[in-house]
């Protein structure tokens, strides 16, 4: 029997699921000692992508809002680091990280306030258009180095006058662990958030917004808060990208990035908070493999999306359990839409 409460929270549903997650976390923590240096960088990229996908999951999986402009806040986080860092010396992470989060969060508040006046497809198109507006600003003006992007001094791991002593070779390792710690903090923070009343209201909006309105919740405010938090977290992800690469360019903001983040979520599964992390790591791995075997990376990406959309509507995690019990008719055949009113509560047997 599915635990309804944890389904609303997208929390791990069983002890084996929790054990698996703990194992994954430990594996990620010791991973850099078992793999070549190049792969540490690759996994760091995957962790950054995981933060982006996880932040978007707050909208897509938790609240039922499909945004196609999420990369705008990711890019704004990265560009904030570029904008506040002077040309001659690096700033501390203690300064750049909150700044990136604040700028992205504020921008999300503004964009959300406008786009959340619409719903469904309109919301999709409006978020896409606003995202492209941000792309346009960075691409067509000299504000952030123009279409070619710009290099920046990477933020340092320092507090006031004290600086973490790092050799050049240790730096990628440091970026890896900072990303991993931030990702874990983000995951646990979201888990707590979704367990609170706020999270329950978001789940209620996803299932039936009219009912939440009828219960007296100002759903617009809850959605706006979720949109702003998601934007803020995406800003943190963007900051980590800028810190790792030491480079920003308008592609970070483009809507293809937003669509890829959606793919990571669908790849990993909509129904869990850990899904986007798995999806992002898998997506990064697929991209790397595609680059190794063919020059046509986009072809592989397109085919992977097509395959996932056609055969794994529940993502990798859902797909694996689906393999054990094949379904007929197959999920891509047209089905009758589910009844708008869910059936009455049946007594549960624990």
């Amino acid at each position: 029997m599915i635990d309804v409460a944890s389904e609303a929270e997208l929390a791990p549903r069983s002890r084996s699921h929790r054990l698996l997650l703990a194992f994954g976390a430990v594996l990620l923590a010791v991973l850099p000692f078992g793999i070549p240096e190049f792969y540490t960088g690759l996994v760091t990229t995957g962790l950054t992508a995981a933060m982006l996908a996880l932040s978007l999951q707050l909208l897509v999986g938790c609240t039922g809002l499909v945004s196609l402009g999420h990369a705008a806040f990711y890019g704004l986080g990265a560009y904030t680091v570029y904008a506040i860092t002077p040309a001659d010396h690096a700033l501390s992470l203690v300064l750049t990280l909150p700044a990136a989060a604040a700028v992205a969060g504020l921008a999300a508040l503004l964009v959300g306030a406008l786009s959340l006046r619409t719903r469904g497809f309109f919301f999709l198109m409006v978020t896409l258009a606003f995202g492209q507006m941000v792309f346009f600003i960075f691409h067509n003006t000299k504000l952030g180095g123009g279409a070619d992007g710009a290099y920046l001094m990477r933020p340092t791991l320092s507090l006031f006058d004290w600086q973490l002593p790092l050799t050049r070779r240790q730096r990628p390792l440091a970026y890896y662990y900072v990303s991993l710690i931030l990702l874990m903090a983000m995951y646990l923070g979201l888990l707590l958030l979704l367990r609170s009343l706020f999270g329950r209201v978001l789940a209620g909006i996803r299932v039936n917004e009219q009912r939440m309105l009828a219960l007296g919740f100002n759903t617009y405010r809850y959605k706006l808060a979720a949109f702003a938090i998601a934007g803020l977290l995406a800003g943190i992800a963007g900051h980590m990208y800028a810190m790792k690469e030491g480079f920003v360019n308008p592609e970070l903001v483009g809507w293809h990035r937003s669509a890829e983040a959606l793919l990571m979520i669908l790849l990993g599964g909509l129904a869990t908070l850990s899904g986007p992390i798995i999806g992002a790591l898998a997506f990064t791995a697929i991209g790397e493999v595609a680059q190794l075997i063919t020059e046509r990376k986009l072809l592989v990406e397109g085919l992977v999306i097509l395959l996932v959309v056609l055969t794994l509507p529940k993502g990798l995690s859902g797909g694996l359990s689906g393999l054990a019990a094949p379904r007929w008719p197959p999920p891509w055949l047209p089905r009758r839409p589910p009844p708008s009113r869910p059936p009455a509560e049946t007594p549960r047997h624990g």
Partner: protein
Amino acid sequence: MDFPGLLAQLLNGLQYGLLLFLIASGLTLIFGVMGVINLAHGSMFMIGAYVAYLVTARWGSLWLALPAAALGGLLVGAALEAGLFRHFYAREHLDQVLLTFALILLFEELRSFLVGNDFHSVPIPALLDFSVPITPHFAYSAYRFAVIAICLLLAAFLFLWIERTRMGAIIRAAAEKPEMVDVLGIDARRVHLTVFAVGTALALIAGALAAPLYSVYPNMGDGVLIISFVVVVIGGLGSVSGAFWSALILGLVDTLGAAYAPRVAGLAVYVLMAAVLLWRPTGLFGRRA
């Protein structure tokens, strides 16, 4: 601000707006009747432009390219509807978004595989390669006049189809209350196939018409897709007349902006969209929610 210059910009804006209408009308129809979002609609514009390039390069005539684009559009649209989209009408928005995103990537790869990644220019047909004198000091490209005329003609046919025919009545009904169309026992599948094919053909024709004006290049569908979304948002969901007026407004705003305030012009359309969302979230011509 001199008068001939302004007139030229107004005509340019009109011509751009009408092209936008051809693209956005297909988007809004597909979307209004089937409730499916088609991100690959911009790729259809790109394919139309490449059809124009290939046909003109091979047989030297844009006049051959236009019917080829129209026919090809009908076929591609019908194939996509019957092969893929039909199975996605009842699926989540997220699935539709990703399906059509995948199509964009695949169409771009196909284009790169078949034609390559170079920029190409398409010559204006010799018959129209002259300027029409309007005042003693001002002449305007005959080809752009022809584009305006063709777009207006297609728009008129589209309106007649939707307002005066039985199929059009079903389309309007389906955009308004899809359940009622089902209840009345109308075969919705034939309507869906036709709407999708016609919408796709309009985008290909727009691409073919635009090819001599804006040249042909990779990812040219992307910008067009975004601006068509803005057209649909401002015009209102599923409203073809709304798409017409908002396409004209956006065409003029964008063109005049680029001519007289080039630094901020790219932002003008988004500011307009934000203003419309604040004022009427369902679009200028959409029904009030």
